[in-house]
């Protein structure tokens, strides 16, 4: 299960922000931190990469979200499937 750390930049306007945060909170894959200024730190945990992409696209299209930045990815859980054989 890939786990990523994201920063969501929210559009200005308290009503828009509150609505966007509410919809984000409803997604079980997301763990939300504290909104600070216009930025919301988020942890994203998904089944696989396809779901990560799906959620990312959903975030980018969500009203009230101006931008999504990724700051970390832990691929340790999936790496064992991709490693070259040990020498």
């Amino acid at each position, binding site marked *: *299960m890939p*786990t*990523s*750390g*994201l*920063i969501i*930049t929210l559009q*200005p306007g308290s009503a828009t922000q509150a609505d966007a945060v509410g919809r984000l909170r409803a997604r079980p894959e997301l*763990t939300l*931190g*504290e909104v*600070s*200024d*216009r*930025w*919301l*730190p*988020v*942890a*994203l*945990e998904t089944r696989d*990469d*396809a779901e*990560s*992409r799906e959620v990312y696209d959903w975030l980018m299209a969500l009203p009230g979200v*101006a*931008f999504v*930045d*990724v*700051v*970390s*990815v*832990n*691929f*340790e*859980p999936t*790496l064992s499937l*991709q*490693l*070259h054989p*040990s*020498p």
Partner: protein
Amino acid sequence: MNLPRREFLRASALAAASAVVAQRTGAADATTSPAPSPADGIAWDKAPCRFCGTGCHVRVGVKDGKVVAIQGDQLAEVNKGLLCVKGYHVGLALYGKDRLTTPLLRKNGKLEPISWDEALDTIAKRVMAAPDKFAIYGSGQWTIPEGYAANKLMKGGLSNNHIDPNARLCMASAVTGYLSTYGVDEPAGCYDDLDACDVLILWGNNMAEMHPVLFSRVIDRRTRGQKVTLIDIGTRRTRTTEFSDHYLEFKPQSDLAILNGIAHLLLKNGTYDAKFVERFCNFRQDTAAASLLGDAMTFDAYKAALEPYTPEYVEKISGVPAEKIRLLGELFGRKDIRITSVWCMGFNQHSRGTNANRLCHGIHLLSGHFGKHGDAPTSLTGQPSACGTAREVGTMCHFLPGGRLIANAEHRAETERIWNVPPGRINPKMGHHTVLLWEKFCTPTAQGGDISTVWVQVTNPGQSLPNLHKLFKAKRGLPDKFLIVSEVYPTATTELADLVLPSAMWVEKNGMFGNSERRTQQWFKMVNPPGEARDDCWQTIAVARKLFELGHPGLKDKEDKFLFTFKNAAGTEVPAWDWKHYYDVNVDRALFEEYRAFSRYKHKDLAPYDEYVKARGLRWPVVQQASGAWRETKFRFAEFDDSYVKRGAGIQFYHSVTKDDKALIWFAPYEKAAEEPDADFPFWLCTGRVLEHWHTGTMTMRIPQLSGAMPHAYVEMHSADATERSIANGETILVRTRRGQLRLPVWTNGRGHVPRGSLFVPFFDQRLLVNDLTLGEPDPISKEPDYKKCAATVVKLGAGRLNSV
């Protein structure tokens, strides 16, 4: 995975994101990274990203000898904790299933495993048999020590200047643009300009997808409520266009006319900066043949040359409406705003790339939009060390380290002194530049093909050269030609290789890069390479040692010592050519400290190696202060920041071509492209990159997250052109030029949108080699090929008109 571990990873991810937010809001100290939790089990260290020239720093998490996690490094000024989609998957580039793990020699047409000793012997014997017919082809992905070692082996050891990097295909025209304008290479400004400009002009540069972290930096300013006007000047709509205030779509090659149109308006409206020009500028043009330094011209002659470039004339050439040309002219004429221009391959991979670069510098100088943060023309590079290695180390066929020239006797003598080799060791004749080198390699020896052995390191010419049938594939059937390839994965280049050497990559070795903004970066080896893969730098030194043992005189210095002699802290010589001992000494540190001696001549001063160990890169010139501290430079030639500028001068171009501390404003006319659409080939064909893949895709196509998102190449086509030919979106068609043909699926509604009469094909896909089709017309000065313009046609499959080319 058990629940506590999952919870832990989730908490770590949230903590990393929260730390970046805290830094952005000023709630946290920007000088400390979040402390790793002891329960993490992951060891973290810093490294620049392996991919593009932006130079983002990542935190690399290692567990059980493998890279398992990546974070944006919040201590890094370049990316401030952010990464792009490629960057946060960079760790997986190491773990493709088909990593090369043993040397391979072609025997009876098949690559067979051999020992390293046999591989080194094979190379050394080829070189000894014909040292002057040997060439090294490297890249802007060489680390600084790797490029320095290869350069020293060739120029200081073999007296052979046939060494050139793929940077010739990438930023050679930026180099000639800087050299012919300021007398010294590389930008005056830096990324800080993106934080200070009022207007950002993207000249043929899709920054949102090619340098996304830098673009994010600009967009972030907007979300803070700052006004930044984005102007996208391009030949196709991209994601960058979506964020832009103005999109100026021009006909290919006509950027030259647009640039002249701006200069015309500055002069006509009297809005040029007369004081700046008088104090700091001279004028130049090429009168007879194209040349680096051209001929002097007067201001009046310059003005007369620009007279025809009225907005209406420029509109006729470029297709950009006259009022948009006026908009640009008015913006450059304003003194109350700061303008930053950025460009990458749009200007550089251009048959008049040097002129495009010169003209862009020219409008900034003419208007005085230079010398303040936010007011600068700045080229971006595509590779992580195109600047650090190809340009600064001087791995090009006409350069010596630190901006010196092969053709200059004093420069050769000084280089020989630093290398401690006998006078006259360096050959005064320039080597073959990239296109010529490959042309000679692919030409039968009896017909003048004077290169018989090429050693490729850290690049993939079998995919990235233009006109591949002529410049690469013609090697087939030439039995006396021998291709050596150091690589990490099988590629289009290894397909024709006679000898393949498995290489370590990125954090499997020590390294140093130099990014687009003059920032030199360092990292340490963190994990072991797979199998018998070894460092490229070691490979160079090991071959040098073999040549030394075989008695090649060039591998000895003036004291008859081996050219690559290393000592440990105790002063004992370490046989670094023996892999068992390669890491007994820090070879990178030793080579870098030697190379540093070259850096002062062009005021590109580098700090000691250990300063880079502590930093997330430092921008040269890095000058030692009275306190002993090392200070980097953000803006060159400007008194407010550059300590080499004389007090009171304000601006000083201290490497001026005209030796009077002035820069050159060039005039260059609009000229048609070498090949333009006609009745038989009615489309323009442009090539480039996509967000998910880096260059030829050898690394990113091994990362499932990236290859899954963008699995194959395609051809972008305007929907009206497709409809006219009864071609449906997604249908496979044939794209043909005078050099080759390729079957590609059509994309009419993709993320990029070409205008009518244009096609765009990305070059990342090894199975769909668009460079079979490209012309590669070189710029006459830089010798950089044009990948952005040639004439093509499309054929609906099944139409019964297919002929093989």
